[in-house]
């Protein structure tokens, strides 16, 4: 019996590199556990628990769309690398909880094989003693015999003098077993059995056989030929070698299996599948507090998109190859933003422009604004590659529904950023959309080449004055269409006009989605009122000049926030009783009229008293 516990801390081969063909999901097995292996279009290899978190369907029957893995049962999408759920089609308006994340295992390619393990903490076996300048993996062979019963009969079989590729020489091997999982066969050249001088040239490479413990009763034998490949021996000789070893391994399998017949069947290994967190066992509640800086990231690249716009790319601090737990950035959905804590103490919100599956970094695009309150200056002028910054995890209060028959994206200037990530997601999934970008001058048309390449119609409206812009928008929103959705981000005046026009033309509030850069209105904080917190049983007084959010914080009531000016929607609180005095630009008019929630950073009370679900 192998030491099962020790085996959990090793790297094991789980597939051949060539098993992971583009857009395919490969079902692997290791130590009784099933894994879904898939290669994303960016080359990254994913090794995941072969089980959708939702209802347990095998992910190996899912769809690899190149950037995300889509479950067959309810279409949940999981991102390349992080395995974070990015979209739940049954609830198109909600961003999935950021932490709905499938179990992942490390995956590395070496010796032409894919390597993984439950929690590997050592090195992938090296083949230092052999010539590894060129390597050719053999076809993996599954043998219905426990791992510890394979090496000896396999050595016997190979060293009993096997025919060479040309059939007229015999190769002899010397065997070496550094550990129970590896067998090295050193080829000792040929013994000629015919006068044919050609036989001397038949290559006889050394072979390393790795043993993959599939489950208690079965083992995969993964051989690699060392020192040969198509380039140094030519394809005809290589094919002959592969055929020969394939044949030999099948013979060896039959011999090993028949030698093992009548042996008792070992007790199966039952892998432990971690439970989902309590939070996800039911619907997640509102939690924790503040503009939290949870992540540390390193600025890895700055690029000029236009004379005034730069992109900034951030990477997780300690991503390492062969590390058992490569640190990954929490997954973000289209429309999400992060708070960036700038060196000058400011906290600013920026939309992520990442496309689907681009999970190894966060990218933002920032325009240098003269009237900016210091955010864009700090980014443009004082940051350099290599700097370490603190950011929040991504939040999404501007979620992209994917159940529209058509999606209209309308951007004003740098307001393109959240819509760019949406366009990338829609385009990748072949969902129909149109993009309108209103810009002052041609140079503001950032990412133009990429957008022109998308299948959707993209229109640039250059240099329109207020009246022209309003005429264009009015024409766009002319008649409401069922199952169409509009997303708009840009300056406050443009959003205000769009919302009003859409409302008068009869568009349903739920079809118009908007994101403000900031709240254009002046907040009136002169009122005084009482709040009662239904769940914590507290009764608090909010005086003039202080926000509801800051009073809650003073009493240690956790509410998340981000922009703290009524634009982003993060600090939403449910109202059970009383009439809110809405001062935000996040809620739609319908939601405001319903009066069952408010943005605690700016909104107050019209009634003397509010009862909140906190």
């Amino acid at each position, binding site marked *: 019996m192998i030491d099962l516990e020790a085996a959990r801390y090793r790297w094991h081969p789980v597939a051949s590199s060539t098993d992971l063909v583009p857009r395919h999901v490969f079902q692997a097995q290791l130590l009784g556990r099933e894994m879904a292996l898939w290669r994303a279009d960016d080359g990254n290899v994913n090794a995941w628990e072969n089980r959708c978190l939702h209802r347990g369907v095998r992910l190996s029957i899912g769809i690899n769309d190149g950037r995300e893995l889509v479950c067959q049962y309810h279409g949940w999408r999981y991102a390349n690398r992080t395995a974070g759920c990015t979209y739940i089609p*049954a609830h198109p308006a909600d961003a999935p909880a950021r932490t709905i994340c499938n179990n992942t295992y490390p995956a590395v390619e070496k010796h032409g094989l894919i390597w993984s393990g439950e929690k590997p903490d050592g090195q992938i076996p090296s083949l230092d003693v052999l010539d590894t300048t060129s390597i050719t993996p053999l076809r993996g062979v599954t043998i219905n015999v426990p791992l510890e019963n394979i090496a000896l009969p396999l050595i016997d079989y190979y060293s009993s003098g096997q025919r060479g590729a040309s059939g007229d020489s015999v190769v002899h091997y010397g065997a070496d077993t550094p550990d129970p999982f590896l067998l090295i066969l050193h080829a000792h050249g040929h013994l000629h059995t015919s006068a044919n001088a050609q036989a001397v040239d038949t290559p006889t490479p050394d072979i390393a056989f790795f043993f993959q413990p599939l489950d208690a009763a079965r083992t995969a034998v993964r051989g690699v030929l060392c020192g040969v490949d198509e380039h140094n021996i030519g394809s005809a000789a290589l094919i002959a070698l592969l055929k020969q070893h394939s044949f030999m391994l099948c013979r060896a399998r039959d011999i090993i299996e028949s030698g093992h017949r009548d042996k008792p069947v070992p007790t199966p290994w039952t892998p432990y599948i971690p439970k989902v967190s309590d939070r996800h066992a039911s619907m997640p509640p509102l939690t924790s507090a503040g503009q939290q800086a949870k992540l540390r990231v390193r600025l890895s690249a700055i690029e000029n998109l236009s004379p005034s716009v730069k992109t900034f790319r951030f990477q997780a601090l300690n991503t390492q190859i062969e590390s058992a737990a490569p640190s990954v950035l929490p997954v973000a959905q289209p429309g999400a933003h992060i708070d960036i804590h700038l060196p000058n103490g400011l906290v600013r919100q920026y939309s992520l422009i990442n496309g689907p599956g681009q999970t190894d970094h966060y990218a933002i695009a920032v325009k240098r604004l003269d009237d900016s309150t210091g955010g864009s200056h700090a980014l443009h002028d004082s940051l350099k590659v290599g700097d370490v910054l603190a950011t929040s995890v991504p939040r999404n209060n501007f979620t992209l529904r994917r159940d529209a028959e058509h999606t209209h994206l309308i951007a004003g200037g740098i307001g393109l950023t959240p819509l760019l990530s949406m366009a990338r997601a829609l385009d990748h999934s072949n969902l129909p959309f149109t993009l309108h970008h209103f810009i002052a001058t041609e140079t503001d048309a950032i990412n133009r080449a990429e957008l022109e390449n998308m299948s959707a119609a993209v229109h640039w409206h250059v240099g329109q004055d207020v009246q022209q812009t309003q005429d264009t928008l009015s024409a766009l929103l002319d008649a409401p269409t069922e199952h169409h959705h509009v997303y708009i981000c840009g300056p406050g005046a443009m959003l205000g006009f769009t919302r009003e026009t859409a409302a008068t033309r009869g568009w349903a509030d739920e079809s118009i989605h908007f994101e403000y850069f900031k709240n254009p209105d002046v907040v009136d904080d002169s009122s005084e009122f009482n709040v009662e917190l239904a769940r914590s049983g507290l009764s608090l007084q909010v005086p003039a000049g202080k926000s509801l959010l800051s009073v809650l914080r003073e009493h240690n009531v956790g509410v998340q926030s981000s922009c703290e000016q009524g634009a982003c929607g993060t600090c939403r609180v449910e109202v059970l009783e009383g009439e809110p005095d809405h001062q935000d630009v996040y809620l739609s008019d319908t939601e405001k009229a319903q009066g069952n929630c408010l943005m605690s950073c700016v909104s107050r009370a019209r009634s003397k008293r509010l009862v909140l679900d906190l």
Partner: protein
Amino acid sequence: MTQCSDPVALALWHPIAAIEDIPADGKQKTQLLGEVLHYRKMDDTRVSVHHGDRKLPVTLAYGYVWTCLGTPERDLFDLPEYAESDRRNVCAATVGVNVSAPRAVENFLDMGHFPFVHTGILGAEPHTEVREYQVNVDTERDEILATECLFYQPQAAAGSSGGVMSDYIYRVPHPYCAVLYKSCPTDESRLDVIALFLQSVDEENIRAHALVSVIDTQSSDLDIRMFQQNIFSQDKPILENQLPKRLPLDPRAETPIRADKSAIAYRRWLRTKGLQYGVLAAAA
């Protein structure tokens, strides 16, 4: 084969075959709760079922033969629509599936998979939203009721053409049976009924029997069977790829969303019943 020791499952009525499928003479064989049973048609209104030498109780209802390996605690649930004179009652399918009965019940209650599994028939992208619906446990009748279920359907039944918002009501009157009522495409005032009766061959294998009871003068029996068997054939590969095969009752085993309200209620209902056969008990 391990014997079933679950008193709850032993006291239930279980379907074993469509009456019309039983040949006029000869002994037939099937399996229920891991036990081999023999049954035979005596005449048009009588069927006998044996477990070894033991004669088992029999109920003939809704087109199927039902039996019980223990002592039945109550009568089989009511399905009054079956007796309405203008309905077409069709035993539409019997399909073997390598999954537990409770997993198959959940699949039957689940609207979220329509666009992905029954593409172009019961659902179609991009119309994937599962709207809020109501779930109640009727304590008097001891059954689960899900109402106000609305879902976009490109072709809801054999007799319909074109997309509609379909209205559903689901009933779970038995741990291994579920009934669906949906707006009838040919008569708005009536409801079509599709009932799923699951035979637990063992804990991880079922035979799924379907009764279709509709107001439809257009479709032939064959049309109705083809429709239902097509639907079953789409669910089968998904169900057979669910891990674990038994339904986990531990709330932390899987991640439910609001669309799964009826499944959450169903799991809770099974927990209170103390049912063990075909489920993985929640850790105490």
